[in-house]
C-alpha cells in the first residue's frame, strides 16, 4: 500500500486548484461596494485562498479514495469537515461549503473502504439504489402503517405550533403531489400548471363561503367540482397536443388563471386578495374561538377544555390528513382499475392504445378532471387554513415544486411522493437557518438526484395486478 498520491493524482489535484483559483478570483475575490466616490471594488483574497485550499483538500481526498490510500483520504476529509466547524472562515458560505464537501468526501472514503478499494461506477451505484428502492417499494404496506401511526400520534406527542404548521404544509404538498401524479405519473402528461387547479379551489372556497355564507363542508365538494370544471376547460384545447407543446399550454393556463385573479378586481379583490376567509367550524357543531360570536358554542367549552389556539391547528392538521388519505385511497384504487391501466398504457404507447379502441381524448379529460378535483380540495383547505389568499400564493414556482416532488419521487409511486415531499419541503424548512443556501442546496440536491436516479427515487413500478401472486414464477426477470 502506497502512502503517497500517484503522479497523475497529484497533477489532478493541482489542476483543480488552479481552475478553482482562476474562476474564484473574479467571482469571489472581487466584490463591488458602495463608496463615497461611486462604485468601488473590494479585494477578498482571504476568501479565495480558503476556498481554493478547501477545494484542494476535497479533491485530494477524492483522489486518495480512488487510489485506495485511506491514510490520506480520511484525514483530508476530516480536516475539511472540521474546518467547517472550527476554522475562522471569512464567509458563512465557505463554512457551509466545507461542511458539505467534507461530508461528501468522508462518505466517499467510507464507501470506498467498504468496497475494498473497488471504485464505484455510476452503473453499479444505480443498481445498488435500484435494489434499495425495490426493497422500500416492496415494504410499502408496512412503511405506510408505521407512517400512519406516527402521523396520527404527532399532535399528541408534539402539541407544538411550529411542528404542526410544518406538518400541515408537508401534508398539503403530499396531497398535491398525489393529485398531480395522476396526470404526470400515470397518464404521462407533463402538466406545468397544476397550481391553477389549486388556485381555483382556494378562490372557489373563499368566494362561496364569503358571498353565500356556505359552510366549509358544503364548499369543499363545490370547490372540487369547480376545479374539475377548470380541468375540463383546460383539457379540451390541449387534448391534441403532445409533449413539449402540451407542457407549454398548461404552463400558460396556470399563468392565465393567476392573471385573471389579479385583474378581476370586483370579484377576486385583485392583488390585494381576499381577507377574512371563514375558518372551518368543528363539523358545524362548535367554533374555534375564545368567545364565540355566532350561535355556535366554543370548542373548548363544548369539551370542557381550557382555551388554546392550538386546538384549531390540531383540527386543521387532522383535516388535511384525512383529505390526503382520501386522495391516496382514491389514487391507489384508480391505478388498479381499468382507467388507471388505460392511463398507464397511454403513457407507454398512444398509438397502440388507439389500435385497441381506447379513446385518448376521454382518458386525458378524465385524468385532468380527477386530478384537478384533488387540487381543488387542497386549495379549499389552503384558503381556510390561511384565512387570507392572494394571487401571489399561486405562482409558477408552486407548480414547479409540486412537479419536482412527483418527478423526484419516481413517477407514479405513492410512497416516493411522500419521501420526496419530506426532502423538498421538509428539509429546507428544517434548515431554515441556512437561509440563502437553502435554495442552492435544493438545486444541488435536485441535480444530484437527476444524475444518480434520473427516473426518480422510487422508480420501480408495481404491477396493478398479478396472476401468480407476489412471488409467482418469473415475476422478476
Amino acid at each position, binding site marked *: 500500500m502506497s502512502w503517497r498520491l500517484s503522479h497523475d493524482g497529484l497533477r489532478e489535484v493541482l489542476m483543480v486548484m488552479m481552475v478553482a483559483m482562476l474562476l474564484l478570483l473574479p467571482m469571489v475575490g472581487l466584490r463591488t461596494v458602495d463608496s463615497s466616490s461611486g462604485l468601488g471594488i473590494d479585494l477578498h483574497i482571504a476568501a479565495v485562498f480558503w476556498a481554493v485550499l478547501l477545494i484542494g483538500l476535497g479533491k485530494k481526498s477524492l483522489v486518495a479514495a480512488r487510489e485506495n490510500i485511506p491514510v490520506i483520504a480520511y484525514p483530508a476529509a476530516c480536516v475539511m469537515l472540521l474546518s467547517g466547524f472550527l476554522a475562522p472562515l471569512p464567509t458563512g458560505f465557505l463554512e457551509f461549503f466545507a461542511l458539505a464537501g467534507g461530508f461528501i468526501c468522508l462518505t466517499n472514503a467510507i464507501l470506498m473502504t467498504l468496497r475494498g478499494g473497488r471504485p464505484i461506477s455510476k452503473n453499479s451505484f444505480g443498481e445498488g439504489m435500484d435494489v434499495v428502492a425495490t426493497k422500500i417499494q416492496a415494504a410499502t404496506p408496512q412503511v405506510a402503517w408505521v407512517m400512519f401511526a406516527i402521523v396520527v400520534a404527532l399532535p399528541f406527542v408534539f402539541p407544538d405550533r411550529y411542528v404542526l404548521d410544518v406538518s400541515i404544509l408537508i401534508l398539503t404538498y403530499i396531497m398535491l403531489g398525489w393529485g398531480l401524479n395522476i396526470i404526470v405519473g400515470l397518464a404521462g402528461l407533463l402538466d406545468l400548471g397544476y397550481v391553477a387547479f389549486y388556485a381555483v379551489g382556494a378562490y372557489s372556497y373563499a368566494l362561496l363561503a364569503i358571498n353565500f355564507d356556505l359552510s366549509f363542508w358544503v364548499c369543499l365538494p363545490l370547490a372540487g367540482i369547480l376545479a374539475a370544471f377548470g380541468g375540463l376547460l383546460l383539457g379540451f384545447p390541449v387534448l391534441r397536443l403532445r409533449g413539449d407543446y402540451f407542457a407549454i399550454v398548461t404552463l400558460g393556463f396556470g399563468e392565465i388563471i393567476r392573471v385573471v385573479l389579479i385583474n378581476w378586481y370586483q370579484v377576486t379583490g385583485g392583488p390585494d386578495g381576499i381577507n377574512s376567509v371563514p375558518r372551518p367550524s368543528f363539523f358545524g357543531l362548535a367554533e374555534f374561538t375564545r368567545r364565540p360570536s355566532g350561535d355556535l358554542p366554543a370548542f373548548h367549552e363544548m369539551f370542557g377544555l381550557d382555551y388554546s389556539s392550538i386546538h384549531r391547528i390540531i383540527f386543521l392538521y387532522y383535516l388535511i390528513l384525512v383529505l390526503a388519505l382520501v386522495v391516496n385511497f382514491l389514487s391507489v*384504487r*384508480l391505478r388498479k382499475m*381499468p382507467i388507471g*391501466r388505460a392511463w398507464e398504457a397511454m403513457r*407507454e404507447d398512444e398509438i397502440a392504445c388507439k*389500435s385497441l*379502441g381506447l379513446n385518448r381524448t376521454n382518458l386525458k379529460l378524465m385524468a385532468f378532471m380527477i386530478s384537478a378535483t384533488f387540487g381543488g380540495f387542497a386549495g379549499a383547505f389552503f384558503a381556510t387554513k390561511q384565512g387570507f389568499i392572494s394571487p401571489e400564493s399561486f405562482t409558477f414556482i408552486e407548480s414547479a415544486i409540486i412537479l419536482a416532488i412527483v418527478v423526484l419521487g419516481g413517477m407514479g409511486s405513492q410512497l416516493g411522493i411522500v419521501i420526496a415531499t419530506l426532502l423538498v419541503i421538509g428539509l429546507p424548512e428544517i434548515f431554515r437557518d441556512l437561509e440563502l443556501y437553502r435554495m442552492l442546496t435544493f438545486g444541488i440536491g435536485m441535480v444530484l438526484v437527476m444524475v444518480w436516479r434520473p427516473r426518480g427515487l422510487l422508480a420501480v*413500478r408495481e404491477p396493478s395486478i398479478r396472476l401468480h401472486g407476489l412471488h409467482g414464477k418469473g415475476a422478476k*426477470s
Partner: protein
Amino acid sequence: MTTPLLHVEQLTMKFGGLTAVDAVSFTAERHDITAIIGPNGAGKTTLFNCLTGFYRPTSGALTLTHDLGEYLLERMEGHQIAHQARVARTFQNIRLFEGMTVLENLLVAQHHKLMRASSFLIGGIFKLPSYRHAEEEAVMLATKWLEEVGMADKADWLAGNLPYGDQRRLEIARAMCTDPRMLCLDEPAAGLNPRESAELNQLIKNIRDQHGCGVLLIEHDMSVVMNISDHVVVLDYGKKIAEGTADEVRNNPDVIRAYLGDDEEEEA
C-alpha cells in the same frame, strides 16, 4: 350470396406527390385468411393504416359487414374502428406497453368491457361484486389467450423483457382480447425462426377456424404465406397486380416479375 366481411373499393392514399396506395379494390371473406403480399414499399402497411383509421384515405370506400352491423371505415376514427367495428391490428414494429406486465397488456385490450363493469368509476373504487366478477372474467380471457399463444407461465413478466418471438405473439393475443371480427397482422413472421414461424401459422389458422374472425395478413416474403392463405392479393408500387388463390398468384407472370425484378434477395 352474402356480403363479404370487408369490401375495399378504389382505395387511394396519396402522400403529397407519392401515391402509396393506388385505386386498390378487393374483398376479404369472413372465414378466410386473406394475405396481402408485395415487395417492400408496395403500400401494404399504408393500406392497413387506412383500414384501421390511422390514415384518412384520399378516396375510396371501405365497408366492413359482420354480425354487429355495417361500418364505413373510411369515415370512422381510429379508436371507433377498433371498439365498434371490431377491427384489431398488430404493428410491423411491435408496439407493446413495455413497462407493463403481460397480463396488464391483455387487460388494457378489454378496457371497454371493464370500464362498463366498473360503472365508469364507482364500481371499481368500491370493488362492487359486479366489477370484481368482470375483472375475473377478463383475467380468464387473458389467460386463455396466453395459453393459446403458449405463454401461460409468463403472465407477470414485463412485456419489454420478453424474447422477441413472445412479444410478437403477445401482440396478437392482445389484439384478440378486444374480441375482433377482423384481425390485421402486419408482417407477424418478421424476425421469427422457422420453428416459431410454423407455430405462428398454426395460431393464425386457429384464429380463423375457432374464433370466427377474418384474418388479413401482410407478408413480404411470399413463401411464408403460401400454405396458409385462402386468398392472396398482390400489391406493387401501390397497385394491385394480381389476386387469387396461392397457386394462381404464384404462377402469375406479373407477380414473378415484381418479386424477381425488385426484390431478388428475398426469393433467394
